[in-house]
Each structure stands twice: as structure tokens, then as C-alpha cells.
């Protein structure tokens, strides 16, 4: 079993906050306000990120927008190859997505397979007028034709490296660390 070694702190709590504030402004600018706007966080770490973006938007525009939680486990394309079945959690989207501008939020964009699964899951829930993608870190190495509309930080990485995102709500602190398999 190979171990992970911390290599570098990519983002601290302040730079995460600034990244999310910028993303919130970009979302509002691109969509000209909050009309029909909804956010959906991908479990696990996309959820607190989506809630934070919603809070920033509330601060900026004074309007609250709905936030949903998406679990993509049942849509994964590797279920027949992994030996340990990932635990399925509940999807909690208590609003109709049809006709909405839906911003999907996740922590790291890597191969694009999670986003592919999320798109399939969302389309089963209804027909949003648009789906956009916001991520805290884009680390490259896409295996599918998928790109993000809003990016907190672009980080060129090698396949030997791992991006570890820690968030206050889940991990007790805000930090993005570059780690290496040794």
C-alpha cells in the first residue's frame, strides 16, 4: 500500500473564501442575477461548497436561492469493477429542476466521470434549461469531454499526485493540499 505525502498547501481558508466569492460573482454576472437560479452540490464536499456559494449570493444580491444535494453513487460507471460497494446516500433536491439554471458544485474536477454521472442523475430528475459547473479546483486529466464554467483554482498536476480538499463543515478546517503517492 502506497502512502500519501503532503507536498504543498495550494489554498488556505482565505484563498478558498476569495475563490468562492469570485465564483459567486461570476455566476450572477453570467446569468444576470438570481432568476431561476438553483445550486446543487455533489456529495460529499460539493454540498458545503454549494451552501457557501448560496450564502455569498445572498450577501451580494439579498436573495436566497435553493440548494439541493445530489448523490451520484447509483450512476457511477465503475460499480461492476470496484470490490467495495460505495455507500449510497440520499439525494435531497426538494425543488423541481425543470426550466431552472442549475449550477452543479463539486470540490475537484479530475477525470470528469463524477460530473458525467451527476449529469445523468440530474436529467432523470427533470429538464433544467441549463446546467453549469462550478468547482473549487480543476486539476486536469479529463477522460471525458467535460469542462467547468467556474473554477476556484486551476492546478496542473501529475497522475501521481492527489488533491485533498478539507472543509470546515466536514473536516474541521479549510485547506486544499497537494499530496503525492510515495
Amino acid at each position, binding site marked *: 500500500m502506497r502512502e500519501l505525502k503532503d507536498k504543498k498547501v495550494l489554498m488556505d481558508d482565505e484563498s478558498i473564501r476569495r475563490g468562492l466569492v469570485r465564483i459567486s460573482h461570476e455566476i450572477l454576472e453570467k446569468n444576470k442575477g438570481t432568476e431561476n437560479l438553483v445550486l446543487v452540490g455533489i456529495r460529499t464536499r460539493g454540498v458545503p461548497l454549494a451552501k457557501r456559494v448560496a450564502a455569498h449570493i445572498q450577501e451580494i444580491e439579498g436573495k436566497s436561492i435553493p440548494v439541493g444535494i445530489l448523490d451520484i453513487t*447509483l450512476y457511477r460507471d465503475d460499480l461492476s469493477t470496484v470490490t467495495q460497494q460505495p455507500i*449510497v446516500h*440520499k439525494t435531497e433536491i426538494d425543488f423541481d429542476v425543470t426550466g431552472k439554471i442549475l449550477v452543479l458544485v463539486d470540490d475537484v474536477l479530475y477525470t470528469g466521470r463524477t460530473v458525467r454521472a451527476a449529469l445523468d442523475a440530474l436529467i432523470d430528475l427533470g429538464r433544467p434549461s441549463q446546467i453549469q459547473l462550478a468547482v473549487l479546483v480543476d486539476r486536469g486529466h479529463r477522460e471525458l469531454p467535460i469542462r467547468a464554467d467556474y473554477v476556484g483554482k486551476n492546478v496542473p498536476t501529475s497522475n501521481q499526485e492527489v488533491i485533498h480538499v478539507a472543509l470546515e463543515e466536514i473536516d474541521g478546517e479549510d485547506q486544499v493540499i497537494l499530496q503525492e503517492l510515495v
Partner: protein
Amino acid sequence: MSSLKSKHMLGLDGVTREEISLILKTAEAMKEIFTRKVKKVPTLTGKTVVNLFYEPSTRTRASFELAGKMLSANMMNLSSSSSSVVKGESLIDTGKTLEAMGADIIIMRHSAQGSCKLLSQHVKASIINAGDGNHEHPTQALLDMFTIKEKKGQIEGLTVLIVGDILHSRVARSNIFGLLTMGAKVRVVGPATLIPVEYKKLGVEVFYTLEDALQGADVVNILRIQRERQKKGMFPSIREFHRFYGMNERIIPYLKDDVLILHPGPMNQGVEIDPIIALDDRAVIEEQVTNGVATRMALFYLLAGRGNQNEDLN
């Protein structure tokens, strides 16, 4: 813990608390799919699931079928009356045939105890026991526990009473194993001829008077009187059973205000349960049906990743 130890679900005897909790937690996520417009997810695309029923069944078979279809599996239904069983094919040969067709999961109901275990020793597919004689019916107990957990918040510490023909009931047996594992107190009540005293050794409280047994019970699970298994005269008459052990108007004063009333169905109204109980707000018999599909989906999901693995049987 994110997987089950066995690739089969033959019974709840020996299944751990962590495993049962995992199934119930997964079922909770599966139930959400019912609230969607498109009640289907692609999880089991390409997997083949077979319903192999040697005994009649409507709801269990339909429940498994819907669970498989909601997960996008290829479902096949075989019943003994319309298959090569009537031509004399053995169980193992039927299993081998299904294996050759690529079955990943076989759900079996059979009148002989241990038949599911026998099949599991001869085919590579995961076997789910949908009732083998009077041995076990684990998915019914799992959906009962899921319903209890959903309505009561937890299972541990609750007093659960099982009423009726305990002796012939595979539902009772699986519930007893599962509930005790989850930390519930289990009581049984029924005519002395229909209660196996061995259950006392497991820690089950045995009652012979319904009114006494109901005192303090948080959950009452009413078993169907299986008329097809009552030919030996274990009690004098259906009418007498109804009078002493039927859940009817007479017992209403003995029910807790927040009691949860379960029945695995199909109900013999006027025998073990009267309409006044079945229609009571505290009865969740129809919801058990929905929960049954969610629980079976959870089991399919958890077993599907195990289908191609070998393991030793013990």
C-alpha cells in the same frame, strides 16, 4: 463497513448489526427514488436477476421484480407451474441452466427449508432467500425493521411483539434474529401449540395471552394465519383463534397510543386482523409494501458488486 460479508442473503441468522444497519441505510437512499418522476436509476444495467418461485407469491415476487426494474436490471420471472420443474428438472439443474443464461442474482422461494443454501452451493450467482419452508424470509424482516426504524427513529430498546402462528412462520424467525441483533426486546404470543419454546433460549419473551403481551409493546407485527399449513389441527378453529388472538376491537384499549402495527400481508381480515385495526392510523401495512421495494433494491445494490467473487461457504 461498506459491504456485506456474504454474497448471498440466505437468512438473518448470523448477519451482524453493522450489516443490517448498512442495508437499512442504503434502503433509505433507495426510497427517495420513489418520489421522482423517473423512478429508475441505471445502477444494475447489464445485470440479470431471476425470480425463481416454487411457491405462489404475488407481493414478494412483484416487489423483487419492481426493485430490479427500478435499478435497470434484466428481470426474469420463473414459476414452478409454468417451467421445466413440472417436467421433473432438479433444483440444481435449474440453477445451472440459469447460470448458463448469465444470472447474477437468483431470488428463490421454495417449500423446503435449506433449499436456498443448497442452490447457493452449486451456482456462482448470489442467492436471495424469498422464503424457504418455515425457515427464513430475510427480506420481509429487513423491510419490517426498515419500517420500524423509519417510524420510530431506532430499533434498539423497543419492545416488538409478534402475534400468531410463530411455529410455521419464516417471517417470525427472520424478525426474531434481526430484531435481537439490533437490540430490540422481542415478545411472541399465540396458542401454545404454535410457539416453539426454543425461542426462549434466544431471549424471546413468550406469552399466551394477547392482552398481557400487548402491555408496553411499541410495535405489533401480526402474522398471517397460513391456512395452508393448518391442516394438523394445531388450534381448534379459526373462530376460536380470532376470539383469543385476533387483533380486533376488543384489544384496542391495550394498545399504546404510539404503537406501530405491522402485517406482512396478505391479510386474512376477520381472522388475525379486523378491518378496524388494519385501517387504524397506527397501522402502516401499505407503507410496508413500498418499503419492501426499497429494501430489496438496497440488497440488490449491495450484492451486485459481489456477484463475481468466490468465497468459502460457512
